[in-house]
């Protein structure tokens, strides 16, 4: 009965480092998020609108690459070492992937942030989707590659631990948390192939001037081949905590081990062959391929619906263990004063709302109305921006003391912070969804146009803007409170009275799970077959139509040199006069 740091002091140091890398990214990302909300709504504009896209690139990359994935590697290391009850095989190896990821982040950040400084001829205002023929500085692509290779090595580290454990425990089932980590990583290996090919075969050589052109539809399709499963990569550590920690916080244990395994296997199988649902509006891809992606996407709802069931059932079980009774009265018996519990519960609730708006996105025809409008950021701030981010913050309230041996600085502020995030996001996301229905575009510094205005059927655009700005401000304050709590916790005095780091056995344990669920080779094979089925024809058709390097076209380095801007202005005026 001891805290994590007592058993694994050295691994705890790596996890702390990963968490702090994640939090630094969150700090920068939240600051830029605030600037975006105020700028778009024309409430405060401290930057030029042309710099908006530098800010947005940084917000996207720092939030969904750095913040999420650094936290993930921390949680996964905790989950594997805890559930196998053994340290990593080689600490040097563990530190080396952490360093590679950090170096990759720095390399990616340099050209992005250089976009603010006109005198440096380097920039990467390509947003986190980096669609060619917009072109970033080569360092941007190099940094991303290093970061991804770092995550591959991290996965190898966890597989090594499992293999070593298995040779000592040949007849045992894979412990559930490790099972979750391994299936998620297999999905990640398959998914990252897409951007690996896109960057290494096309974008990097092109940015270095080694090849003249790229096929924009091909690199875009390869991006989305990766772009959908990455969503589940962010989500799986949150699911892992919902399955392992949340029931424990509620005072009980997970309802069903077999069902949890089924869910992770389904994610492994279905996450990748759906990416084309981000391309319903793309020319050059036939309706049939889009339709297949849509059908697969709908089936991908299944594991999330199952999760909703299991998690709620486990929480109810916990509440009843604590003396809760009645149809709904048991809700009152839950530990609502615990920030780790409340944060995750609120995150789960928002995920239900996000799932609903996601179902709408997934429908091919409704998608035409909302594609690339503010509806879309409205949607994913519920999913990755809350279900994931708030679960991570709530998880940190429990995990940070475990890996530092120090008690949380302030529980009441932590509790307030989680509720504040929920309230802020309710404002911001709701208004973004509504603005999207009016056709107000996303990724736009000034969605005010000269020739026309957006008309709201209910309320007004000004009211929507106000809600976005209020929501964004509350979220920013919430992020600051979180970071402050983490910082003070790190400087707290160590304590002996931390809760012990155990994950309770599920009610229906692994003995009830069919052994085939642990056959990782089989699931990997099926996952690959599904990907080949879903992608070989669309990719072949894209290459057949436009060629590997596209039907021609120039590169558009996104540099903000003053001469270029001046030239653009002159061109625009001349066009206007013609």
């Amino acid at each position, binding site marked *: 009965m001891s805290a994590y740091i007592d058993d694994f002091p050295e691994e705890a140091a790596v996890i702390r480092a990963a968490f702090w890398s994640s939090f630094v990214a969150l700090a920068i990302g939240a600051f830029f998020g605030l600037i975006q909300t105020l700028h778009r709504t024309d409430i405060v504009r401290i930057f030029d609108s042309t710099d908006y896209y530098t800010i947005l690139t940084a917000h996207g990359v720092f939030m969904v690459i750095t913040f999420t994935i650094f936290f993930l590697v921390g949680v996964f290391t905790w989950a594997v070492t805890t559930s196998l009850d053994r340290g990593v095989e080689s600490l040097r190896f563990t530190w080396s992937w952490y360093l590679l990821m950090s170096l990759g982040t720095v390399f990616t950040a340099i050209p992005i942030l250089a976009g603010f400084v006109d005198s440096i001829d380097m920039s990467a205002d390509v947003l986190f989707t980096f669609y060619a023929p917009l072109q970033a500085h080569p360092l941007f692509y190099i940094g991303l590659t290093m970061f991804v290779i770092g995550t591959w090595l991290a996965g190898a580290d966890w597989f090594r631990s499992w293999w070593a454990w298995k040779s000592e425990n040949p007849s045992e089932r894979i412990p559930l948390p490790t099972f979750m980590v391994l299936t998620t990583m297999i999905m990640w290996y398959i998914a990252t192939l897409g951007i690996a090919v896109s960057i290494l075969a096309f974008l990097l050589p092109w940015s270095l001037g080694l090849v003249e052109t790229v096929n924009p539809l091909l690199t875009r399709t390869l991006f989305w081949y990766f772009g959908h499963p990455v969503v589940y990569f962010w989500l799986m550590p949150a699911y892992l905590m919902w399955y392992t920690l949340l029931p424990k916080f509620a005072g009980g244990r997970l309802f069903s081990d077999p069902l949890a395994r089924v869910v992770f296997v389904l994610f492994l199988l279905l996450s990748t062959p759906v990416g084309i649902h981000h391309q319903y509006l793309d020319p050059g891809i036939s309706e049939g391929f889009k339709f297949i992606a849509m059908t697969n996407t709908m089936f991908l709802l299944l594991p999330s619906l199952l999760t909703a069931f299991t998690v709620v059932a486990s929480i109810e079980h916990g509440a009843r263990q604590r003396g809760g009774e009645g149809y709904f009265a048991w809700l009152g018996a839950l530990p609502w004063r615990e920030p780790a519990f409340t944060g995750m519960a609120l995150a789960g609730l928002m995920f239900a709302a996000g799932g609903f708006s996601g179902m709408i996105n*997934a*429908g091919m025809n409704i998608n035409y109305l909302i594609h690339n409008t503010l509806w879309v950021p409205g949607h994913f701030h519920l999913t990755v921006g809350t279900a994931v981010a708030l679960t991570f913050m709530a998880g940190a309230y429990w995990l940070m003391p475990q890996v530092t041996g120090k008690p949380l600085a302030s529980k009441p502020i932590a509790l307030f912070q989680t509720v504040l995030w929920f309230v802020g996001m309710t404002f911001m996301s709701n208004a973004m969804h509504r603005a999207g229905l009016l*056709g107000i575009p996303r990724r736009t510094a000034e969605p005010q146009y000269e020739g026309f205005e957006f008309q709201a059927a209910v309320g007004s655009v000004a009211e929507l803007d106000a809600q976005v700005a209020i929501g964004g401000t509350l979220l920013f304050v919430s992020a600051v409170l979180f970071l402050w709590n983490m910082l003070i916790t790190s400087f707290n005095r160590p304590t002996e009275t931390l809760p012990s780091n155990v994950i309770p056995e599920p009610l229906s344990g692994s003995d009830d799970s069919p052994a085939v669920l642990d056959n990782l080779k089989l699931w990997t094979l099926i996952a690959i077959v599904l990907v080949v089925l879903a992608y070989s024809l669309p990719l072949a058709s894209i290459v057949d139509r436009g060629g590997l390097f596209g039907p021609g*076209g120039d590169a558009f380095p996104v540099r903000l040199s003053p001469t270029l801007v001046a030239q653009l202005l002159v061109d625009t005026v001349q066009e206007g006069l013609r």
Partner: protein
Amino acid sequence: MNIHTYEKLWLVGAMLLIVGFIATVTYGAVGVGVTMIDDSEETIDPTQLDEDERFSEPRVEQVGENEYDVYVVARQFMFQPDPIEVPAGSDVTFYVTSADVIHSFSVAGTNVNTMVIPGEVSTMTVEFDEPGEYGIVCNEYCGSGHHAMEAMLIVQPEDEFELEEGEN
């Protein structure tokens, strides 16, 4: 495997929901005939649009009694032609391509919305029932002047509509 009764019910419910979604979307696409952007057009070299018969002169063209074709070029940071004038109550087919990077062609607040990818031509056929003015925006980030990329679509009353010679 030990599955609780409630679990089974939930599972069946979830499957029904999923199949239901697929059915409604299929009905929307096939039954009602909502058309999708697809791969019906050949690829084109975005640097050679000047040589192209359709896109060298972006324009509105009458091709049948109640049928019009509109050739649109999206480029940093404008649409050509601008404004686009079409009559109400006719079938209007848009052909949109890009001269440089990825843009979109999105008629605000409607489902006339497509990505515009260099090298590809997006097509869609729309009928506007009522005369009116719509804003066209680019809703895909296309560079530092992206927020200035707009145009107008003017749907004229049927009897007032006239194609100008050499309209551009």
